[in-house]
């Protein structure tokens, strides 16, 4: 098993902003994603990059280096996300030899697994130098979101002097004030249904 170096973690929105700053330049990056999560993470990054005005995004899922180079030849997007999860050592070796065929004024992101990134570093040292510092580990936004949700719920409880149970009970009884803070509170609890009129 190859060992990848420790990389800076980035969520898809953070990476998208970082890459947007490079738009229009020849930029090569690696996004190291835990095995089995590549498809979701790539979709997330595609969404985030595509949210910037004037950025066309393409996703390629080649099985081999030869297929990648064929597909790249017909792609004019500003940002190209390459699912390289299926690349093994022979693909990286070939990519290193044919790296000049990658050159273009676009952002190329190679999404790979930790093991795949280790292979890349060993088998494609010249291409790895193109990537340089633009190698990041996928960070799941769920943890940050969960912390933020907890902080906001705590602030709402302190503001109103009520518990979550109080708010749910008052909403069920039609006694919950209609202030926007309570709407947010119900959504954060997963009870947005209680904003609708309750059966009596």
């Amino acid at each position, binding site marked *: 098993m190859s060992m990848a170096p420790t990389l800076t973690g980035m969520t898809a*929105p*953070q990476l998208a*902003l970082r890459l947007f700053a490079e738009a229009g330049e020849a930029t090569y990056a690696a996004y190291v994603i835990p095995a089995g999560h590549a498809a979701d993470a790539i979709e997330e990054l595609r*969404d*985030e990059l595509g*949210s*910037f*005005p004037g950025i066309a995004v393409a996703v390629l899922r080649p099985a081999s280096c030869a297929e990648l180079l064929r597909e790249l030849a017909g792609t004019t997007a500003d940002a190209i996300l390459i699912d390289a999860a299926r690349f093994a050592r022979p693909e990286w070796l070939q990519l290193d030899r044919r790296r000049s065929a990658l050159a273009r004024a676009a952002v190329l992101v190679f999404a790979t697994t930790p093991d795949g990134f280790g292979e890349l570093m060993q088998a494609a040292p010249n291409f790895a130098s193109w990537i340089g510092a633009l190698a990041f580990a996928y960070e799941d936004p769920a943890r940050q*979101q969960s912390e*933020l*949700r907890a*902080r*906001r719920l705590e*602030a*709402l409880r*302190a*503001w109103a002097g009520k518990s979550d149970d109080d708010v749910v009970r008052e909403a069920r009884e*039609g006694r919950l*004030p*209609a*202030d*926007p*803070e*309570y*709407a*947010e509170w*119900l*959504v*954060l*609890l*997963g*009870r*947005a*249904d*209680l*904003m*609708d*009129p309750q059966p009596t």
Partner: protein
Amino acid sequence: MKLARLQAYTTARQLDLPPRAKQLHHLLRNELLEASNTGAIADTPPEVFRRVVLLSEPPPTVLEELRARSLHRHAYCIIGGEKNQDRDHRIPHFRRSDGAWFDFSIVVREHAGALELLAYDFELRFPPGMGVPFLRYDLNFPHHDNAERDLRCHLHSGSDDMLVPAPLMTPSELLAVFIEGAQPAADRGRRTPTAYEARWYAQTHALARR
């Protein structure tokens, strides 16, 4: 009754919103990014990205919630800046170049291919001498109670206790009001408060100290 008619008129306005919460989140983030790039707000692009967050409802945990959620799904909060009920300047927020600062929170629901705006609060706080301490535009969530319904969409003009009817606006329009609109008039110098206002501020301050 007249107030009810006014609210019905303002809240019936058809808003131009994207169909998905994620799209509205991206739209607002891009508008703040643009404001950052032009210097209208002092926050950097990474700060904008950190502060504008889309939060979905957590997965249901009990059977009752599961049943309820099968009928009512896809509600989201879009938040801009941390919750700040005490108006603590140390809590992360957006900063206008003239020292005014703001945060916001929006509640939406995706329903039948469209986005329904359920509630919002947008609060802009001013430095001393800029007329009022803060402005807050609120949209309360739909309520069965008449009194609540008649002031569903309102403005707090410098006081949490004072509500005046306000037009329903899209989140983009509210951001435009906060970033470009709510400014002292450029062609007027700072006006000296009248004796009435000076006395009012002094008496209000005395009330607060009791």
